[in-house]
């Protein structure tokens, strides 16, 4: 299934995540596969509730208690889902890091920024003075002005954008090779969003970092990602090179998503909001989960779950009629 196993730093293969629900377990991630080659950015998009966060948490091993997983998360050739807890813990922060949607909640309110950013260094045995210097350097590289002073401040003294910068510094402290960025700009002002995205992109390019950029916002992903994975109701609807997927979608859901955003396609001036409500893992429609909202839906869609298949060079779609969508 993975297209280029040699180059892929991370290979997610048939990932399944079950969360304990009311009566039975909820399959919130259902057979998700994609690769993240070293030094590249992959965008993970989909409406809220489509399983993006759970996918990222499964990769870093921080799923909520009681969650069960299936499939594989192959990291540098090693399946992390079957690795021991100590190995998983060592990967976190040092090889794979994560930043979150709400940087205020993600930072400890009772600790100074500098201490939080430098904690991983101190735990690794870096002496206090050296760790302090590295923290200042990390904050500076993350674009926090006056880092010596600000390292001594608390999260509530930072603005939203500065908090996310501090969070980025924290995530980079352990020199990871992969950064999972879960809606890193969703909670921020529009002007700040663009700056944080630019920062992530420049860090990613400079350090040769790989990044999984999770967002419900197509525009965010379009700016930064090389490849995109489009999720719907816990499954992959489509994946491929970002430009191609957004310009010529191979899945009706992607097409609807693109049309719902005015700025992505300059040709359409008006946005066409998606009709209907997104399917949830709790009541996922039979057959193709998108069929109640799909303009192309027909009998087969209601009966048969579409398997993901290659519909063009490096283009993958989970639609029975992808060829009709592709122009």
């Amino acid at each position: 299934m993975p297209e280029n196993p040699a180059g892929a730093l991370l290979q997610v293969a048939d990932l399944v995540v079950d969360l304990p629900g009311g009566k039975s377990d909820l399959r919130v991630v259902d057979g998700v596969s994609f690769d993240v080659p070293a030094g590249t950015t992959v965008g993970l998009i989909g409406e809220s509730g489509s399983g993006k966060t759970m996918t990222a948490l499964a990769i870093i091993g921080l799923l909520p208690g009681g969650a069960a997983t299936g499939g594989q998360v192959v990291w540098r050739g090693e399946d992390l889902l079957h690795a021991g807890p100590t190995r998983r813990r060592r990967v976190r922060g040092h090889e794979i890091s994560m930043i979150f949607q709400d940087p205020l909640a993600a930072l400890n309110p009772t600790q100074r920024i500098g201490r939080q950013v430098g904690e991983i260094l101190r735990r690794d045995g870096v002496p206090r003075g050296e760790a302090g210097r590295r923290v200042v350097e990390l904050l500076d590289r993350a674009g926090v002005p006056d880092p010596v002073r600000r390292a001594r401040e608390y999260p509530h003294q930072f603005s939203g954008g500065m908090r996310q910068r501090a969070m980025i510094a924290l995530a980079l402290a352990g020199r990871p090779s992969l950064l999972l960025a879960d809606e890193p700009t969703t909670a921020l002002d529009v002007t700040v969003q663009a700056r944080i995205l630019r920062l992530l992109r420049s860090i990613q390019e400079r350090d040769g970092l790989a990044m999984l950029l999770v967002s419900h916002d197509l525009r965010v992903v379009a700016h930064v990602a090389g490849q995109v994975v489009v999720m719907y109701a816990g499954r992959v609807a489509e994946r491929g090179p970002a430009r191609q997927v957004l310009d010529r979608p191979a899945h009706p859901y992607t097409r609807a998503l693109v049309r719902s955003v005015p700025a992505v396609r300059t040709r359409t001036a008006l946005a066409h909001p998606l009709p209907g409500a997104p399917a949830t893992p709790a009541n996922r429609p039979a057959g193709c989960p998108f069929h109640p909202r799909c303009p192309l839906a027909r009998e087969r869609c209601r009966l048969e779950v579409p398997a993901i298949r290659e519909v063009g060079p490096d283009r993958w779609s989970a639609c029975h009629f992808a060829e009709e969508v592709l122009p």
Partner: protein
Amino acid sequence: MTRMIMRRLLIGVFVMWGAASLIFVIVRAAPGDPASVLLGPDASREQVARLNASLGLDRPLLVQYVGYLGDVVRLDFGESHRLARPAMGAVFERLPATLELTLAATALAVIVGLTLGLVAGGRPDGIVDRVVSATTVALQSFPTFWVGIMLILLFALGLRLLPSAGVGTPAHMVLPAVTLSLPFTAIVARLTRSSVVEAMREPYVTTARSKGLTETQVLLGHALRNSLIPVVTIVGLQMGALMGGAVIVENVFAWPGLGSLIVDAVANRDYAVVQAATLLIAGVVMVLNLVADLLYTRLDPRIRMDGGS
């Protein structure tokens, strides 16, 4: 910060006034009066009336009240007619013993309660958690004096390990301090448990885990301090209740503190001593609450900033 302290002291003055007024009314509303207790059942009406008059108790209540408040403001807490000495002097003499007991019980409760709560909350529904939950529910429902008597029966009379009453050696302190601390330990353990469980669900704990910390490092480095915030508040608030509990425990164990003095004074309608002791306890509780508040602001930097410095 200073503004906060000033505000709290001002509120404290009102609390003290309230406490003084309440106890003033209560001691006088209770049946019996000092003179008839002092003179015994054989005294004539005239004798009782004369003594009450010489104690100033024949004046209208309002006049007595205003006079009393005036005295208190001048730090004159009246004479104990029974002990024939200034009431506050007698009370102060007993304060160290009560404080010693209260502080020992608090230290025990905080150390044991925090530890149990941390271990239980670190692994909710684990074995430790279940045992701690069951024990703390039980502890909170037993009356203090009953627990005290049970401990005496077991450790003093049964096993003969510890003295059952009195003072002198540190061993004398063990049973009263443990008795006094048990319900408080239960409160601290339960509160710590629930705030640790809550803190462990916070997003910043996920961040801490994403740094590759062990669960113990996450618990002690991130969840503990944030769970301490509500615990410190409760400890401060419960100190008052604890001093109240000390009154009972002191009587069970013949501990020569404020408790036994107050019980004696109430039995003998020694108004001045009851009033002085009440005011002193209210004052001590107020200071302890203030200390808890200051500690609380130390723990939570968000509050530290708001009050100005």
